[in-house]
């Protein structure tokens, strides 16, 4: 791709990653969450694949698949965390510690430090979706390139 596309991709990649991170982080307060934020961030990765070509990124395939596995393991581990009560029980919500502030019923401005395991799960799923979608785009791009040659 031309230098214009590459430059714009360089500028936009951090922005899309940051916006994806924002959507993931505020998943329990505003519209959005792990899947949506992960997809936003993955669109940045797709842009990089288009702008710079899949060849230059082919070494990152292993990294992406490892990241995806880690995201899945982390998500399942968070679900296992509730096993003292039941699988998936939200043991951190309202417990006072990490993400443990209570929330009264009704309209409020929102507090990031709430919702227990939800933000952690959002992050796990966000990374998983980012890595997964990135890997799919990269695999398709690599396969096509191989065929054309």
């Amino acid at each position: 791709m031309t230098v214009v596309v590459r430059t714009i991709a360089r500028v936009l990649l951090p922005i899309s990653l940051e916006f994806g991170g924002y959507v993931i982080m505020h998943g329990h307060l505003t519209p959005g969450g792990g899947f949506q934020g992960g997809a936003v961030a993955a669109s940045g990765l797709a842009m990089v694949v288009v702008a710079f070509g899949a060849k230059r990124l082919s070494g990152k395939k292993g990294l992406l698949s490892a990241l995806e596995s880690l995201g899945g393991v982390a998500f399942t581990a968070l679900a296992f965390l509730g096993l003292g009560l039941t699988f998936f029980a939200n043991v951190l919500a309202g417990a006072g510690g990490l993400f443990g502030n209570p929330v009264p019923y009704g309209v409020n401005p929102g507090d990031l430090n709430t919702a227990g395991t939800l933000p952690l799960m959002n992050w796990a799923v966000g990374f998983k979706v980012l890595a997964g979608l990135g890997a799919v785009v990269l695999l398709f791009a690599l396969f096509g390139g191989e065929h054309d040659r």
Partner: protein
Amino acid sequence: MSVHAPILAIGVALLGGFAAPLWAKLHKTLRDLWVLLVVGFVGVCVGYVAVHVFTTGIWVYVLGGRSPQETVASGGFPIRIMLTVDAMSAFMGVIAALLAVVAFPFALKYIAEEEGKTLSLTLGLLLLAGILGMAYTGDLFNFFVFLEVTSIAACALIGFRTWTSRAPEAAFKTMLLYSVSGLLFLLAVAFLYGEYGALNLAYISAQLSGTAVDRLSLALFLGALLMKAAAAPVHFWAPDAYGQAPAAKTLLLVVNTQVSLYGLWRVLFTLYGGILDAPVGWLVVSLGLLTMGVAAFMALVQTDLGRLVAYGAVSQIGYMLLGVGVGLVALSGRPDYGLVAMKGGIFHMLNDALTVGLLFLCVGAVEWAKGTRDLRELGGLGHGLPEVALCFLVASLALAGIPPLNGFASKILIYEGSFRLSPILTALAVLASILLLAVFARAFQGAFLGPRVEVKATVPWVFLVSMGVLVVGILVLGLVPGFFVEGLVTPAAEALWRGRALYLAAVLGG
């Protein structure tokens, strides 16, 4: 920990799938050990659940609640997803775990490292998790989610041999059918959610009143699950799929079909059990007859050993549909013969898993040794591979329903039940069995008899152990069927036959 056994079976299988690629990055042997460990653990959990359910009754497990037994919120309606394991679910779980325990050691040896072993083992674990998730869940949307897990994992495994053009083609076809089936299921769930504002199977079942929309949902459920279970008009994906997947993984595909049938039983008997009428039963019976007939005739003309066995497998689906369909027809009056036929149909699920599984392992062993499955090129393998020939013979006879093997034990129950409804049904079913016997006699003769030929490779002992386990199962189930029918099959059939009230009471209380 034992109070969490049902979810541990599913959760650990999922965790195993997620983690398998990570272990493979460290060392391949670690990955193999991990896979065996996970499958073993899942097997233990499933066994524990089964023993518990068969001795003490339905096991309800609420996910994410303060306690696993807190099924309904204040107000008397369930809000969280819950696992509801009754005898039928536990029975299905046992079939899945049994075949997984046999299939995974076989797969470790059968699939070469350079052909994507890590990925296919991962998919196998996820498929197992999806099957168990479908069997244990008591929530309609959750059933859909796990239906899709199994669909995607199964299709990826069907497309495994990407270096041939047939495998991706079969996989595409199958995926198309599976997607439509999943979407029809989701549409049916959406209709029910729109009417009743709930997703819990037991709660909706208690509310169903038989409106036009309810009946449309039933039609959509039937279409979706029959499509996925390879019943006759839409069976054509199954031979391609079974023929193309690696032999060890075909076992899991067989269980995948059966768990779709299990979903059908669950929908018909538990969800719609209160308002069902006989025409639905007759529909299931006629589809069953059509399936066994069409598949048996198609098996006659096959030249590929894998596809021939696959058509044999499809025809067995017909017997299950016939057995349980007779029970459905008789559901309103609940005469004895309905329960007998249902016992036969459900017992046949276990028998079919063992026999068809063994046949596919034999096909895999033949391909391993000879490099081809074409009956026109095969022949004389009985000299080089006597153990495989023996296994194939036992499995074919069992599939055709020859006493004293297990296929006979379940088919005789189906015949007995269906005869009391209408002798024509029995006659047709017997005819299909005879046809199958002819088909498999020809296959055995074509592949194993004839002048001695050289085999490229001997069959590893792991294969023989896997196959031996299944042969022992077939013989034991055939020689002492009474013990298993009393202990395993009757509770499972009763759970569908009369168990709806118990199922609803276990979830909704009172």
